[in-house]
């Protein structure tokens, strides 16, 4: 083992650049995989922390499955259940604060971006919790406009007992007087502002409603407590659950998608890394054929040779993985630091440090080192098979690879056929498998296609190079070893395919979404709350705001969105209430089933429009019914259309009339307002009027429709630029792969090159042969890559559609052009070093090389 490690280490040191580049490939793969998987769990943990914050001396908390509010009388029913000792009614609402609301200072980071307004039944709450007031006093029943906050919040705000705390509410801004301070808050989650229950109900315009009942049980042992829990659920029905409130269930859906994308990128990066390693090792085995033969001659067993190469792989794998882990953790930190302010503002969570679980570390190590060893295994085995004779007389030992292309070719064809068939099934997992099969199939049939393609391109090159000999030599070199050419081209293929696929998807998504975007947000003005698409935690406004906007001179139409959480088939669904009369005029949904007649249908009984995502998840189509969970039970609605708007495209969303929302869900708060000006209105005057109207509702920000569209489009641009950069990273391995193959080619044809030089070829002619080879190789890789990329782009579209996001297929013209140019460029780049090596060979030495 010692000699193997010694040899491995020495050889690695002797080729520092190549070793570095190979290790880089592994480093990058592990970095992405590990880094992303520390970042996303940090988010999930923060969410869960929010949930846990409700625990305490409480045995169970009764809430609606949808998290919505319900009649306060429910608490009495819970109290009546056998085994329940005490209950406490709560109305707990997160209030998202607009930016700079508390400190009015854009320069400083906000001390808090959300607060929890908690309305307590004082008598019941103090029976269940021990509140240690350090300053002033606790709340008393009958208090008005009084609040108790924690010491930590008081310090954040710079307030004390007797000071006023102003908050935005649906009924306008309200000021509460601080009557007491509790100890500093240590739990995760938003700071609480405690008020009496009637106070909260009045402020939030939710009379007689609560959304949680904390309970304390009598029995102590596990079995009896479980029995009490069951009894409570039996009493209340299946719309209730025993669990704390969570305001951010909606976003967990987004996270799953993001996690999927990043894991995919990580896997792709590692696959490319594996390809590079495979390619590099093949180069190395060829270069060291003499040494291998020598070692075998001296008595090294096959296993010793195999071990040497595996040791080299292991060293690179370990180093690459270790660095990748470090880098990945750094990436996680970077991500958290960069995203924390954004997350804090949008969803009010402290993200904290990236999460490193032992399982993730072990998994990344196994994957990183494993890919390296696997990739190096085949070359290592072939190295072990080198007989002493091959090293002494290489010509004799050459193996013809042509027979391999027979079987491989047909397997490849079958795989491609299967991949195309998979498209028809419309099943996401099958389609994804099909994509992998397609690429694998292309790689397998590539060797057979090398000859005709090489011939074609060499004809082209002959025209370019004017000396047909050069191109012919290059063509001959490649067709002599079609498998090797194919494998090299494959590395390029994957890189180009990813590029085209990304371009295709980006193009389609942009077009698809921007169409929807323009329709949804096409009103003249929009009044947005602090958090879009997390409606549950926004404080809206009562009908007064919409009315006062209508009263402004110059305002034509005002339409609003209202929100209630619900569930369909146990999945969380955002339910939006629209005014069917005004909504289509100011805004509008984009329909995939049904049309604008659906709006009127909403007014007829219980009609519902579901968005494509919800339709895909629940299978609900036009004409079918869905069951919605309401605070008072389930309610059946009929689907009158399938369509969506931009803001809610990523979440399962449904639209019903505001009348039904009020009746079934008791919700009348407006969470978003859109305004169209009347014809010929005085813009400035209208704006001034509207600004005045929202002065008492700081939770809303007025923005012109066009501005908002531009804002959102630029988010797209940013995200996509990031994608392009990532893709570019993946291109680096392709270049390395090509350099390796060209290098092997030069080594193997040393004598030939010597002979060419001896009979009169100039150095630059030799360089041109290598360059021609490189160009043909990259043409091969690019052509196949473009084909694969176009296919994958189409697959991507189909996947999105199946998932419920309707897309238009856009041919990525720019992407294809970029790919062609990139391919050409990579070919030239890759040829530089090997060409120089080839031209620098000393003729006599080269001739003597055996």
């Amino acid at each position: 083992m010692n000699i193997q490690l010694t040899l491995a280490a020495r050889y690695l040191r002797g080729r520092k650049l190549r070793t570095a580049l190979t290790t880089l490939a592994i480093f990058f793969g592990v970095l992405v995989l590990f880094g992303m998987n520390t970042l996303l769990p940090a988010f999930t943990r923060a969410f869960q922390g929010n949930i846990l914050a409700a625990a305490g001396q409480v045995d169970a908390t009764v809430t609606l499955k949808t998290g919505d509010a319900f009649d306060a009388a429910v608490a009495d029913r819970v109290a009546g259940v056998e085994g329940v000792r005490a209950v406490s009614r709560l109305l707990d609402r997160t209030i998202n604060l607009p930016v700079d609301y508390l400190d009015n200072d854009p320069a400083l980071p906000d001390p808090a971006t959300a607060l929890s307004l908690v309305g307590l039944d004082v008598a019941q709450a103090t029976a269940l919790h021990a509140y240690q007031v350090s300053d002033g006093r606790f709340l008393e029943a009958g208090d008005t406009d009084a609040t108790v906050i924690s010491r930590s919040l008081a310090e954040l705000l710079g307030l004390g007992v007797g000071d006023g705390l102003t908050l935005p509410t649906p009924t306008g801004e309200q000021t509460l007087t601080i009557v007491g301070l509790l100890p500093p808050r240590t739990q995760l989650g938003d700071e609480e502002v405690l008020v009496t229950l009637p106070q909260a109900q009045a402020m939030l315009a939710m009379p007689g409603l609560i959304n949680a009942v904390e309970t304390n049980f009598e029995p102590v042992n596990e079995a009896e407590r479980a029995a009490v829990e069951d009894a409570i659920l039996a009493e209340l029905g299946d719309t209730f659950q025993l669990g704390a409130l969570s305001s951010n269930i909606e976003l967990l859906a987004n996270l799953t998608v993001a996690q999927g994308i990043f894991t995919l990128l990580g896997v792709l990066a590692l696959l490319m890394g594996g390809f590079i390693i495979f390619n590099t090792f093949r180069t190395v085995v060829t270069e060291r054929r003499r040494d291998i033969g020598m070692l075998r001659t001296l008595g090294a067993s096959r296993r010793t040779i195999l071990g040497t190469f595996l040791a080299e792989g292991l060293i690179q794998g370990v180093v690459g993985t270790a660095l990748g882990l470090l880098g990945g953790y750094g990436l996680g930190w970077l991500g958290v630091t960069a995203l924390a302010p954004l997350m804090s503002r949008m969803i009010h969570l402290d993200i904290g440090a990236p999460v490193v679980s032992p399982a993730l570390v072990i998994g990344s190590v196994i994957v990183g080192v494993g890919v390296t060893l696997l990739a190096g295994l085949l070359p290592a085995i072939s190295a072990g098979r080198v007989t002493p004779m091959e090293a002494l007389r290489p010509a004799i030992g050459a193996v013809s690879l042509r027979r391999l292309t027979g079987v491989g070719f047909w397997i490849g064809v079958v795989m491609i056929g299967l991949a195309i068939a998979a498209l028809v099934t419309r099943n996401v997992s099958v389609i994804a498998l099909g994509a992998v099969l397609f690429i694998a199939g292309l790689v397998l049939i590539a060797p057979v296609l090398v000859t005709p393609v090489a011939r074609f391109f060499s004809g082209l090159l002959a025209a370019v190079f004017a000396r047909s000999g050069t191109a012919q030599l290059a063509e001959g070199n490649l067709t002599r070893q079609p498998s090797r050419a194919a494998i090299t081209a494959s590395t390029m293929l994957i890189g180009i395919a990813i590029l085209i696929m990304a371009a295709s998807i980006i193009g389609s998504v942009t077009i698809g979404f921007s169409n929807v975007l323009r329709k949804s947000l096409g009103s003249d003005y929009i009044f947005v709350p602090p958090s879009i698409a997390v409606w549950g935690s926004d404080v809206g406004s009562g009908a007064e705001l919409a009315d006062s906007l209508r009263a402004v001179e110059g305002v034509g139409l005002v339409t609003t969105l209202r929100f209630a959480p619900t569930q369909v088939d146990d999945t969380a669904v955002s339910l939006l209430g629209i005014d069917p009369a005004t909504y289509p005029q100011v805004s509008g949904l984009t329909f995939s089933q049904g049309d604008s007649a659906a709006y009127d249908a909403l007014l007829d009984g219980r009609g519902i429009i579901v968005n494509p995502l919800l339709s895909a998840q629940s299978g609900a189509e036009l004409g079918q019914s869905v069951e919605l969970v309401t605070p008072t039970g389930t309610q059946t609605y009929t689907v009158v259309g399938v369509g969506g708007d931009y803001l809610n495209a990523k979440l399962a969303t449904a639209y019903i009339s505001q009348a039904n929302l009020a009746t079934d869900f008791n919700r009348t708060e407006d969470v978003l307002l859109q305004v169209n000006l009347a014809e010929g209105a005085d813009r400035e005057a209208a704006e001034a009027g509207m600004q005045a109207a929202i002065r008492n509702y700081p939770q809303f920000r007025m923005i012109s429709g066009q501005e908002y569209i531009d804002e959102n489009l630029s988010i797209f641009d940013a995200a996509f630029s990031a994608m392009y950069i990532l893709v570019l990273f993946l291109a680096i391995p392709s270049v390395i792969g090509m350099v390796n193959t060209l290098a092997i080619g030069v080594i193997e044809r040393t004598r030939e090159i010597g002979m060419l030089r001896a009979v009169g070829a100039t150095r630059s002619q030799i360089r041109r042969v290598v360059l021609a080879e490189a160009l043909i190789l990259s043409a091969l890789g690019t052509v196949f890559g473009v084909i694969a990329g176009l296919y994958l782009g189409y697959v991507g579209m189909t996947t999105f559609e199946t998932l419920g996001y309707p897309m238009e297929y856009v041919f990525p013209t720019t992407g294809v052009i970029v790919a062609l140019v990139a391919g050409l460029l990579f070919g030239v780049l890759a040829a530089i070093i090997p060409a120089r090596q080839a031209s620098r060979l000393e003729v006599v030495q080269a001739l003597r090389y055996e």
Partner: protein
Amino acid sequence: MSLISAVNLNKVYGSGDTAVTALKGVSLQVEPGEFMAIMGPSGCGKSTLLHLLGGLDRPTSGAVMIDGHNLSDLPDNKLTEIRRRRIGFIFQFFNLIPVLNAVENTALPITLDGVRPGEAKARATEWLRKIGLGDRLDHRPDQLSGGQQQRVAVARALVADPALILADEPTGNLDTRASEEIAALLRQVANEWGRAVVIVTHDPRIAAYADRIIFLKDGAIVDQTVLEPRSYDNGQGAEMVAGKLQAMGD
């Protein structure tokens, strides 16, 4: 009993139209401590013969016996073991592993055999000193001259204490002075250290150092000569050999 004996060796490369017969019915024996040279025009099969003797390749028919074992009967790992322990090899070019220094290169056969690094290094150093490279122990091949590299190869061939040394044109790449040094060294290997040495060479001057010369032509043995001891000293041996070669050519 002979150290190594070849019985009726035939070697054919390729098949059908492109078949090439490299050796035809070659038989010979090498005694312990004997210095034998194999000569002949190019393409006569001398390197092939050497490779077969060393178990690097298998004959199409016939047998090579070492220590009573027929090499063709042995599986690859047994053959490999024999190469490690019983035979030392020296080639014309690229003898040494470029990333290892002189001591490490010399120690390779026994390191591969599992000898502990410390002991392997010690034995290698001893041999290197014996052949006069004690001041170049940690030099890598690119820091040694051609002649020095071949001397290291000789030391390496000896480090496992093999009974037989096989050398294929060991001086082909060296100038006159270095060639003669190597030839003298190999002579010493046979005389002083008692190993059998078989070299393939085309150089009469070097062949003159041997005890016995086998002449091959077109794959078959056509002549054999036994030389007077030290006939390399006065150049007469070389003249005689050259004469024989010329005669073969007609």
